[in-house]
């Protein structure tokens, strides 16, 4: 909590200092930002109340208020990143469309990638197995299995064929 407060204070000080030091900075302020400028930032944010609806498309009063905050900040000359950081500091990481890439959150990005790579490896190995010459497999099987088992296999095969024939 104190951390967050400190960051906000830092941000405020920096903004104040900047506006005091740079004369041109004050000139940029005051001009009314357009709805499109507000929406461009709102699109990237999600409010904690209406989950999964981005801020620019949400019609609730809370989101309206958030958009007004963006408008105010833009008027004061804040940049897009500063405004986003402001919302993250206020409401946590969940306002961003994606989890920030650090710590535990890395899992969300890494796991699908890992699964995909494992899938590719499995597929590649499977392809290799499937492509290996057939006679070898059969001869190995036959040599290992007892006579009973191979007749079993034969009967199974015949039965399967019969079933296939009588389909419909």
């Amino acid at each position: 909590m104190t951390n967050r407060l400190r960051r906000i204070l830092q941000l405020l000080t920096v903004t104040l200092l900047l506006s005091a030091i740079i004369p041109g900075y004050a000139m940029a302020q005051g001009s009314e930002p357009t709805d499109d400028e507000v929406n461009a930032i709102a699109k990237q944010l999600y409010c904690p109340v209406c989950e999964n609806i981005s801020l620019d498309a949400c019609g609730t009063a809370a989101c309206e208020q958030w958009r007004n905050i963006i408008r105010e900040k833009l008027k004061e000359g804040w940049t897009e990143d500063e405004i986003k950081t402001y919302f993250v500091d206020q409401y946590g990481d969940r306002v961003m469309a994606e989890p920030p890439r650090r710590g535990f959150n890395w899992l969300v990005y890494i796991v699908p990638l890992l699964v995909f790579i494992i899938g590719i490896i499995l597929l590649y190995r499977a392809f290799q197995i499937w492509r290996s010459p057939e006679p070898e497999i059969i001869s190995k099987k036959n040599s290992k299995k007892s006579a009973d088992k191979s007749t079993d296999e034969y009967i199974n095969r015949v039965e399967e064929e019969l079933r296939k024939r009588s389909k419909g």
Partner: protein
Amino acid sequence: MVADIGFGSLMITLIVSIYGLGAAYYGQQNRKELWVLSAKRAMSLVFPLLTISVGSLIYLLLTDHFEIVYVTEVSSRSMPDYLKITALWGGQAGSLLFWSWLLAAFTSAVTLRKWDRDQDFLPWVIIVSLATLIFFLILNVFFENPFIQYWQTPEGIITAFSTPPGGVTIFPRDGGGLNPLLRHPGMIIHPPMQYLGFVAFIIPFSYAMASLITGRSDDRWIQLSRRWTLWAWLFLSLGLVLGARWAYDVLGWGGYWAWDPVEISALMPWLSGTAFLHSVLIQEKRGMFKQLTMVLIILTYNLVIFGTFLTRSGLLSSVHAFSKSAIGPIFLAFISLTLIISLVLLTRRWERLKSREVLTSFFSKEALIIISIVLLLGILVTSFWGVLFPKISEMVTGQKVTVGPPFYERVAAPIFGGMLLIMIICPLAVWSYASFKHLGKLLWKPFIVSMIGIALPLYGGLTHWAAVVAFWLISFVLAVNVFEFFRRTKIRRKNQNDSWGSSLLYILKKNRRAYSAMIIHVAVVLMALGIVGIEFFQTETQGTIPEGGELSLASYTMVFEKLDIFDTDDARNVARATVSVEKDGQIIDVLYPRRDFFYDSNQPMTIPGVRSTLVDDFYVILIDWKTISAEGATFKVYHNPLVKWLWIGAWIFIFGVVAATWPDKKTKLVPVRAK
């Protein structure tokens, strides 16, 4: 009284189902066919019984019985009758009852088929489908009873089914009404389709389990359940399309898909179901991948239950999770149980399902299909993980995060590209053997034609490389399919000396399955065109303008003519703007974007005004207005290029699936059998 009948028949259905399950098991174990027959009869009874229950609830909704808690929650006096009926699936308890009813329809239908040749499957199909039904009935009877009432007792107002001590029924004057978002034609069809798709997949799963339990390793279960699977797939696809359309028409964010967790929960069974359909195809043609087919149907079944769980448990908050309740843990227990049982069964039969066939070529049809299955599963894994991660993160770190569209799009976009690439080659590839040379021979002509797909966008000033690639892939797939149709018709014409028309008709009829598959793939490509259009080239603007004021976007200009605010008979307050759309100084259309405010539920609903052409959509939303309307109103305008192709493709897709599902003529089967 009616509530008593409704709940009574619900209870009886549960008892009959439990009896049916027991009888089927007993009969199977002790080889007593009469018991199995009795179980079959019990299963055919569940549908009529549940129909009484559903009918009672509809009656209560239609006649404004607000002493019933569910009726008060989802209905109101001012709602028109057709909405009162759709309120049946507008809330938790009702939608679960509706779900069970649809499942009962399918299970009862299964009993109607002839079982002479597959007696060994019958008891197990009964057991698996009834077990699923019993689970949902238990939810309805013990946790989400749609027939409970309000009672006034000395301790205050309580809700219960039977009269509490000293309780007197309360009759509220009016109900809260249906969620306005659900009062849309799309919403009348979307949920039933979605549910039908969900429950229909339970039937192939039952057959699969029956096959595993009886230890048969042949394709019989696939033949028996093929049509069920296709119907399930059709309904699920329709559900997704209608849902997307509803979002586009009603939710007012200018899009059709937002990677919302509940959308994803409907997409996941579709992905695994699609993979299953393709795997079935290889199994039928080549006798390979039997294990994979089993894994995929088990996955689909569990994703169906999981999807229902996500929508119904209140675990997720989204536009779809309309109510919250405590049935989550029971759902999880059921999913774990079915997953474990089916996987144990699968491992027991694993060896037996091994195929003797081998893969002979990387360019063979089966190799290409297996790659596309892996791609489909890639989206599935990403979606699954993306939906679950916020919950996991909250449990582990206590920090809530959002996993939004950019996360999914990063994975889905290249995978869809990859699938388009496969769709280019697949119609030309043949089973078991295909060489690169053979493919190259067939590919070079369409390839040259597909260059139009690069040239045109570049000529039009397009610089987005991904979009150019997408357009090229799309035109390549289309070219390949058109050439293939042409080539095959030509061969037929040459051989039979027929006219072009009758040759085309002949080849379409002769191999309807293959050609409906081609139609479906072309439809997917058309949908891709729409998706590329809106994803890459959507532009938007917003502004507050007075009457007579203008907003310009793309090559269009909208003029705000006037704003009307009025009340309607069905208790809505409507604010409707009249907006004329101009292009090159000419008025080409008049749109009426509006905002409806529903008095009974205190909720607004935004309905855009859309001008839709094959080239683009001009989409206007009324965001806000000043109290004195002449002072102005705020509009948000979207320009969505090509999006209409998404809907056109979707309808062709549905047509293709229907064509594939349509029953064969009976006469076709007889000679085959006689041989």
